[in-house]
């Protein structure tokens, strides 16, 4: 969609095109085109195509196939038709996992999108500092594991600085990650901490494409910043916002790492998100067939959301014209 380089092509090591005979060049190029570069292309494409076929296309098809089998990794997969799907529909833990995941996605995406938008607009309207943009991006350099462990420590009920501050204010300590109602919102916010800067920079890039004249003109007309945000920024940013939203929602549904290191699905399945349940089914109980069926279900949900969101936000169209 957007492509740019911060520095124009600078090095032309084999001489520039200036002054060469235009006619003879195009003739030569044309004859080259008709010949084609088949053999060379085959060499250039071979490694990537191998990787694509073996580690992307084949596993995708195999994952769908495995969802129709009983498979424990040790004995060959055994075809069982729709058994896994029937079991899934009747599995209360599957449904609770799905509910927990959806709750997580709502909190995570809701808070993150609003915060990222606010940060992006502040970075655009207040300052163009690259340093600030760099700072905002730093949590994104951490792994989910690191982010999870740091906040596990900060929010620790007994010794965490977060709870020390809370109790100093006179409120009861909150067992953030050990309490059934607090755990999911807490994990959702930890992941907001890690991803909000990256999301903000994506939106910031989108904001850069809005012509500054529009703000200048609105200012001359006496519009306030607030009004400019709703009348200029939001309508023009919508296509970028839509794409970012689709990307982040898809990512959000795949939450696993943070849960694995902070709560391990507990307390009492309160944070047993879908991907964690899938992992447990495969590697804890060796039900690879059932785990595959749930993966397929997640894939279907994600595809449906993508299509729906694309339609709703009219991602394809832009007001910039």
């Amino acid at each position: 969609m957007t492509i740019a380089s911060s520095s124009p092509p600078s090095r032309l090591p084999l001489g520039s095109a200036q002054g060469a005979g235009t006619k003879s060049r195009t003739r030569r190029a044309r004859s080259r085109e008709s010949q084609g570069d088949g053999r060379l292309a085959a060499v250039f494409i071979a490694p990537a195509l191998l990787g694509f076929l073996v580690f992307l296309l084949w596993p995708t098809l195999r994952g769908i196939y495995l969802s129709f089998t009983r498979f424990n990794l040790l004995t060959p997969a055994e075809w069982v038709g729709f058994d896994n799907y029937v079991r899934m529909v009747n599995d209360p833990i599957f449904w609770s996992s799905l509910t927990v995941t959806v709750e997580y996605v709502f909190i995570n995406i809701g808070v993150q999108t609003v915060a990222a938008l606010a940060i992006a607009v502040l970075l655009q309207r207040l300052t163009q500092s690259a340093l600030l943009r760099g700072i905002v991006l730093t949590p994104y350099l951490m792994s989910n594991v690191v982010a999870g462990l740091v906040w596990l420590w900060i929010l620790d009920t007994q010794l965490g600085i977060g709870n020390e501050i809370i109790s100093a204010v006179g409120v009861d300590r909150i067992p953030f990650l050990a309490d059934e109602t607090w755990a999911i919102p807490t994990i959702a916010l930890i992941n907001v901490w890690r991803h909000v800067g990256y999301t903000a920079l994506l939106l910031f890039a989108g904001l850069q494409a809005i012509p500054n004249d529009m703000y200048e003109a609105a200012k001359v007309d006496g519009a306030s910043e607030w009004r400019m945000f709703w009348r200029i920024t939001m309508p023009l940013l919508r296509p970028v916002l839509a794409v970012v939203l689709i990307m982040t929602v898809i990512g959000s549904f795949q939450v696993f790492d943070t849960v694995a290191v902070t709560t391990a699905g507990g307390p009492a399945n309160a944070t047993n998100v879908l991907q964690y349940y899938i992992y447990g089914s495969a590697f804890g109980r060796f039900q690879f067939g059932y785990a595959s069926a749930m993966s397929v279900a997640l894939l279907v949900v994600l595809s449906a959301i993508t299509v729906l969101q694309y339609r709703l936000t009219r991602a394809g169209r832009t007001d910039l014209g």
Partner: protein
Amino acid sequence: MTAVTTTTPTVRPAKRRFSLGRATAWAVLGLVVLITLLPFYWILRTALSTNAGLNADPTSPLPVDLTGTGFQRALGLQSAEEAVAQGGAGGGLDFWRYLLNSVIVSTLITGCQIFFSAMAAYAFSRLRWRGRDKVFGLFLGGLMVPTIFTLLPNFVLIKQLHLVDTLLGIALPSLFMTPFAVFFLRQFFMNIPREVEEAALLDGAGKVKVFFRVVLPMASTPVITLGVLTYITSWNDYFWPLMVSYSDSSRVLTVALAVFRAQTPATGVDWSGLMAATLIAALPMLVLFACFARRIVSSIGFTGIK
């Protein structure tokens, strides 16, 4: 194709006069920076404290009983008795080794993936061959499949190849390409003026030479940006290495951190050691980012938005 990376300051405040709105906006931005950075300081402060000190004085803004024992435990430099006495698990985790494993895996993935993806991108953008658009369409379709969906079947494959618990097994699925890298680099190669390439061809260079001597150097900025982001992504990956790696020989930092956390001694979590280990895992990426920050920050727009 809109350019989004101009960093010239286009918004210039007309008046530098104090206004309540601007002050509030700056305050909010200040708060954002604070929430962003404080956890990093807290890692450092905790890593340099003793566990006894942390228990006695949990709110001290400075390290309690300034010490390096947390790092010694994380790097396996303490005897088991010593470690247990200081609130550690004495499990003998050696983060030097995991650091090395992480470096090997991330370097292997980044080097191979970018190179092979660039070759494919060149074939898709600059070479003429039958079926090019069909194959490219297939690659684009690959963007639709979330990586996470391929993990289980890929694990089955890696197991059949007897590569479980090896560094190669961790790296292999991401070694050859990602649809995104191919797509991203192809877009960029298409923007390189054809005249430049044709001039090189007139000078007698072959297409292979053009790729290495003209196209790759001219695309150095996006290649480096993509490379750094790929390195960070593979360094931070947890789910896939967790599936494939079982022992020290193939354990990478993210998995090791989770193991460290799981080895909680009866006296409570070894926060000092854990935060020291966390810092060891996080620091290389902070340094890497610091080296390329300006380039990455100004080009993040097009790497994320496909």
